[in-house]
């Protein structure tokens, strides 16, 4: 009898949590449902089921076909910026962290301390001088740094470095030095030792660094807004979404559909790589 009661309690708990989760996810549900309605239907039947799901295709077509906001181009730029930034962050942060761990000199300690200290600096205190400084820098080296892809990727490399180096540093410290020593005895160069022995060992922590930086860069707004402008040649999705909402005030069919399109890649990635993402977030938070 007690055993049955216990199971009943667990069943009730299961149902309660499930209902809570469904309530928790209602915002996503309403975005999907209302992205498949006309502007009029949204106002008069906000909570109802869409009359015709084909409207979703129509709305998506309206977004990508829009001439004021180049959504497809922004989507493409967002992907390119995120991928390139992640590549340079992972490569150069790992190289830097390894060199700092394996250098027993005062300068290495000072540099590492500098990276750690910089993590408390809020973007707000850097953003205005950054724009001015990047313009000066670009004029000096004759490479455009504002409204350009390379400028944003370079900035993400610099802003992503402190946390990424901190995470790599903690991980590399625990890799036994003997592995590298034996490679060196076999005649491998310093660089060869890093790329052939150390870098492959970093795989699991690289996933953590990719996920932490990837979520940040994909969703980031202020940095691309300041370095690219709100209607420059290079755009990102968050900027395009705000441009849409600004141009089509209260036209929720278009605004919600544009947010849906911005969310889909992340959600799809999450569905497939959920295990890695959750593990990566936990590892990154504890370090």
């Amino acid at each position: 009898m007690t055993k049955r009661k216990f199971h009943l309690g667990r069943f009730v708990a299961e149902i309660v949590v499930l209902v809570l989760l469904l309530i928790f996810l209602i915002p996503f549900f309403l975005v999907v449902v209302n992205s498949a309605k006309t502007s009029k239907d949204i106002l008069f039947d906000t909570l109802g089921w869409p009359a015709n799901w084909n409207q979703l295709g129509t709305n998506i077509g309206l977004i990508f076909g829009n001439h004021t906001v180049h959504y497809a181009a922004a989507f493409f730029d967002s992907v390119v910026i995120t991928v390139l930034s992640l590549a340079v962050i992972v490569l150069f942060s790992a190289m830097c962290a390894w060199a700092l761990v394996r250098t027993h000199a005062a300068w290495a300690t000072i540099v590492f301390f500098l990276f750690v200290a910089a993590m408390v600096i809020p973007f707000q205190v850097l953003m205005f001088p950054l724009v001015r400084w990047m313009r000066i820098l670009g004029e000096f080296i004759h490479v455009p740094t504002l409204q350009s892809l390379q400028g944003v990727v370079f900035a993400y490399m610099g802003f992503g470095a402190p946390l990424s180096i901190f995470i790599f540093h903690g991980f590399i410290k625990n890799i036994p030095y003997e592995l590298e020593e034996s490679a060196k005895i076999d005649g491998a160069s310093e660089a060869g030792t890093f790329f052939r022995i150390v870098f492959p060992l970093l795989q699991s922590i690289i996933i953590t660094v990719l996920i932490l930086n990837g979520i940040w860069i994909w969703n980031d707004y202020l940095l691309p807004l300041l370095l690219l402008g709100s209607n420059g040649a290079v755009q990102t999705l968050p900027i395009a979404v705000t441009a849409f909402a600004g141009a089509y005030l209260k036209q929720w069919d278009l605004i919600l559909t544009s947010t849906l399109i911005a969310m889909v890649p992340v959600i799809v990635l999450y569905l497939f790589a959920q295990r890695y993402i959750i593990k990566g977030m936990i590892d990154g938070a504890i370090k």
Partner: protein
Amino acid sequence: MHNSSLTKFLFVVPALFAFIMVMVVPFFFGLYYSMTDWNGVSETISFVGLIHFFKVFTEPGFLYSFLITGAFTLINVVLVNVVGFILALVVTSNLRLRNFYRAGFFAPYLVGGIVLGYIWQFLFNNALPTFGKIVGLEALEVSFLSRSDNVIWAMSTVNVWQYAGYIMLIFIAAIQSVPASLMEAAKVDGAGYFRRTFRILIPMMANAFTISLFLTLTTSFKQYDMNLTLTNGGPAARFFDEPVKASQLLAMNIFDTARANQMAEAQAKAVILFVALVIVSLLQVWVSKSKEVEQ
């Protein structure tokens, strides 16, 4: 220089160079600009001393933003951690679908503040009033975003919704690192569920609370994206008989000051934000750490 140390030095250079260019140099320029008459238009910039730092504290809009940012941060620090902790307890229990719940509660964190702001603006302005009409709850029929005394709570709701799942993940790792034998032993000794949670589990995971409090504190204090797209500072309110924007957090106040070409004032406010953030987070970590030692 030895050949191998030269290689290591060269390995440090790319990341260090980018870091110095986008963080270190702008940081010191920023400190300098906050003491100048920089307006973003004129090319010549001259030193004026600390006047902006005194002037901004006589500005009602800035003081108000400072206060509500403090309130917003306090609400979030409490609610995000309480909700995150409860969620962590739920998904580490013996429920059958716990991995599914864990994935679901974390999902909002993946969506950026800009997108979330629009989604919740729609919820508050359209979905909730419609729901209120259907079930006959008049309290819901007026959007929370248009009530100046409730708008901070509306923003905190969105913040809790976004971050609770993330904080939950930190707590899950901490709960799983507490030895099961310890909890079993307490159970055998007759300690009830709540007693075990408060007397053993929470003290054992004090380190996780230090991290989660720090994260919720800093992210709330710097909040901009969601603020911009959810309320854009509105509605109007009054503070010391002066018109202010009821939900304009500090970061937005800084940005709007810069938009009005008062670059030096905006920079001074940003420096104040930085100093306040450093002081508050150092205090928090110091208090948390001293609590950790007590165990």
